[in-house]
């Protein structure tokens, strides 16, 4: 007796529909799974057998062969358990009726008969919907993350027994979770920029970074507030749109991370530790998984203590920064993950952290300091737009304590600038100033004669390279957008020069 059940597997962050063929025949009782299944699937034999028995059904004493088709695609994961169990019960004619071709099953079996949640449920449901499935049976644990997918019935099943009891008469009872789409984003969990004392230059840089998707590097001693500022950057970003939310959730779902905040539309912030491996940063591994750059998609990637990162690991950031995606190539396959993020990095001015400090003496030699700075390669520095040197906050008399603008105030400007960019680039294949190709600068960033003269002066006086000039024009475009100006003014250009030049000065470039 042969049955075919539909399920799905993951390839990168996309699902691929899989047919689970179960055949029961007479002969020596046995159970085998074929179709390039890895160890986690082979182990399904034991889980499924005991799950069926502990749910109160007899396990057929037949020769059982399960084939996962297409059989030439490598498969991994425990989510086939449910479909295998259903296939065996259907082939043994214990279900009362056959599952339809448009039914699909995703879930892991536990020994006590429960259906457990799985990793990567959302992308699999999305691709099942595309390939024509109309009903997906899944674990209640996965229901919430998939709730925003429309046009497909999601039926939560807590246990195998519950499924068998209700399947014949289609008497499943459940409440579909409501999706609170229009809900105002609760930024407060992330803190607010008004918590920060002083450091207005750095906050301004964050505002520019958020508005034009520019990368920024903060340089400052311990305790000046670099991490505090970086953590609050998402409060300057408008919430994720429906499309962005789904693309981010797909990645996080594959990585098996909690999705609660992204469901609410809060952009992700990733803060990997500097001991991170290459595969963990850009993706990869035996089972190719998205790395931190992809987990930060549509959000912020914060690298604290930038020089402490392995230099070769950092160099891998070049591709995602340029292309907003990362391609993991293997001899057998090549997988692409989206990776459009704002890179915020922070570092100390020297190994001891006190160079230039008013309160502490620096104990590093000039050479140690240089070597520390050199760990950040020129090409990577080139890809950073905004540099800020941060001083220790001033402890003025308490009455003078100055508070920074609130996140809400800063964000309203950012949203304005983003709207301007969206409007300007509606016909182009990019959406933010940082992606503006250099050959299109003249089209979108016309400079007045005053500005050209200023650029020329800056070039001579500060020895700014042509490449930096291009970056400066993009930043100036964002600053003008923040100012709601359609034309770049001299003041915008000067501010852009300042933030880019900070970095050149620090590394002694162009001197």
């Amino acid at each position, binding site marked *: 007796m042969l049955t075919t059940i539909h399920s799905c597997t993951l390839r990168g962050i996309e699902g691929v529909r899989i047919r689970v063929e179960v055949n029961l025949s007479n002969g020596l009782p046995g159970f085998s799974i074929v179709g390039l299944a890895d160890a986690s699937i082979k182990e399904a034999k034991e889980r499924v057998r005991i799950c069926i028995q502990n749910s109160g059904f007899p396990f057929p004493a037949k020769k059982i062969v399960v084939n996962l088709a297409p059989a030439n695609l490598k498969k991994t994961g425990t989510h086939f358990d449910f479909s295998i169990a259903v296939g065996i019960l259907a082939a043994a004619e214990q279900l009362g009726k056959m599952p339809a071709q448009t039914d699909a099953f995703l879930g892991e079996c536990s020994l006590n008969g429960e259906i457990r949640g799985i990793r990567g449920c959302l992308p699999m449901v999305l691709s099942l919907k595309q390939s024509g499935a109309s009903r997906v049976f899944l674990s209640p644990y996965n229901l919430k993350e998939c709730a925003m997918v429309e046009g497909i019935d999601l039926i939560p099943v807590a246990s195998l027994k519950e499924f068998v009891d209700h399947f014949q008469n289609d008497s499943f009872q459940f409440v579909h979770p409501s999706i609170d789409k229009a809900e105002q984003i609760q930024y407060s969990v992330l803190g607010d920029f008004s918590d920060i004392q002083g450091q207005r*230059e750095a906050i301004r840089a964050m505002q520019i970074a958020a508005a034009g998707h520019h990368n920024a590097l903060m340089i400052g001693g311990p305790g000046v507030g670099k991490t505090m500022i970086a953590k609050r950057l998402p409060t300057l970003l408008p919430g994720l749109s429906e499309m962005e939310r789904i693309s981010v959730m797909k990645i996080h779902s594959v990585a098996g991370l909690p999705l609660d905040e992204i469901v609410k539309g809060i952009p992700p912030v990733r803060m990997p530790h500097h001991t991170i491996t290459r595969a963990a940063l850009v993706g990869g591994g035996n089972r190719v998984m998205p790395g931190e750059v992809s987990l930060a998609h549509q959000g912020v990637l914060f690298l604290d203590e930038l020089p402490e990162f392995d230099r070769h690991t950092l160099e891998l950031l070049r591709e995602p920064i340029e292309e907003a995606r990362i391609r993991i190539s293997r001899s057998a396959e090549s997988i692409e993950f989206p990776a459009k993020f704002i890179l915020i990095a922070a570092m100390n001015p020297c190994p001891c952290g006190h160079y230039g400090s008013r309160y502490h003496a620096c104990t590093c030699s000039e050479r140690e300091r240089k070597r520390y700075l050199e760990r950040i390669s020129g090409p990577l520095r080139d890809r950073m737009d905004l540099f800020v*040197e941060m*001083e220790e906050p001033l402890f003025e008399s308490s009455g003078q304590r100055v508070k920074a603008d609130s996140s809400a105030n800063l964000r309203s400007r950012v949203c304005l600038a983003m709207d301007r960019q969206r409007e300007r680039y509606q016909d182009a294949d990019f959406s933010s100033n940082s992606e503006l190709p250099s050959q299109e600068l003249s089209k979108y960033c016309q400079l007045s004669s005053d500005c050209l003269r200023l650029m020329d002066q800056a070039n001579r006086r*500060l020895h700014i390279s042509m490449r930096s000039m291009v970056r400066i024009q993009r930043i100036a475009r964002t600053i003008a957008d923040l100012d709601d100006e359609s034309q770049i003014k001299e003041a915008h250009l*000067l501010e852009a020069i300042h933030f880019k030049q900070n970095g050149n000065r620090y590394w002694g470039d162009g001197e």
Partner: protein
Amino acid sequence: MRTLLAWLHAQHCPYADLRTILREKDRLEGLAPLGIMEVLPQLAEKTRLALLAYEQSKQSFDIEQVCRTHKSRMILWGDCEYPAYFYEIEEPPPVLYVRGQGGLSRQAMFAIIGSRRTTQYGLRNAKRIARNLAQAGIVIVSGLAEGIDTAAHQAALEAGETIAVLGCGIDWIYPKSNARLYEQIAESGLLLSEFPFGEKPYGYHFPFRNRLISGLTEGVILVEGTNKSGAMSTIRHALNQGKMIYALPGDIDRKTSEGPNQLIFEGAEPLLNCDQILDCHAVQRRDQKREASLELTPREREILCLLDQEPMGIEKICNLSNLSIHDIVSVLTSLELYGTVIRQGNHYYRTRR
């Protein structure tokens, strides 16, 4: 004779012997090593052995050729180019190697010295002093080390002439990080070494070579350094040689200003203004270009007024003025482009002319 001396020098024969040979060179002309030993019986054992070895290997030793490969030239004790002041110092070097366009002219020279470990304050002032003196036609001498030396050389190169006195053979670039500066000085300044070609930068060379740094000059300016720093050894030589000593006063609780402050306490002249040196040594000043007076906007004037009080960072300017952060940033950049303010570390300074 020059080749023989270069050979003996390369074999590390005592300086005294080399000077003796140089003093008697007219009598020794044309003599074989055995003859030289006969005329000068007081030569040390090492020199005698080197003389004998020279006889065997003189075919393969061509100092002129080596000099050409390294674009250098040799100056001997007694040559007309030999710096006059060196006759007065202890252990005058019998052989000098120089490389570069600059000459060891009779122009006034000053040494700017300091430690490798520096602060922004030291670097800034080393540059300022070097620039001002070099503009006035004074040659700046230093030791091509990291830190203060580098700053002084760089600023002097931009405005005038500089001489670097090395602690290794002239064909060695040390420290490696100064390779570019080494090339620049070779291009438009002068590199000078008393060590033979190929001599490595051994630690004990540096205090020894320091006597040449002070020896070349009219006076020595100590910018920064702790009491134990190498710069203090240059000062000791300068005192022995009777040179003027200037010290840049610094914060008394700053470790790097310990040396200069101690010197001031002991009677060195505190260097408050480069005019002190220029007036005292009656150096002819070159006309300094006056920048055209600039039209300043009210915002620029406001920020300049603040910076006139004291150097400050952006945060403080922000606190003291009513301008927004983005206005301040663009005004400061604009002033920087005019050259009216400069930035060092986190702070902006009003430039003084």
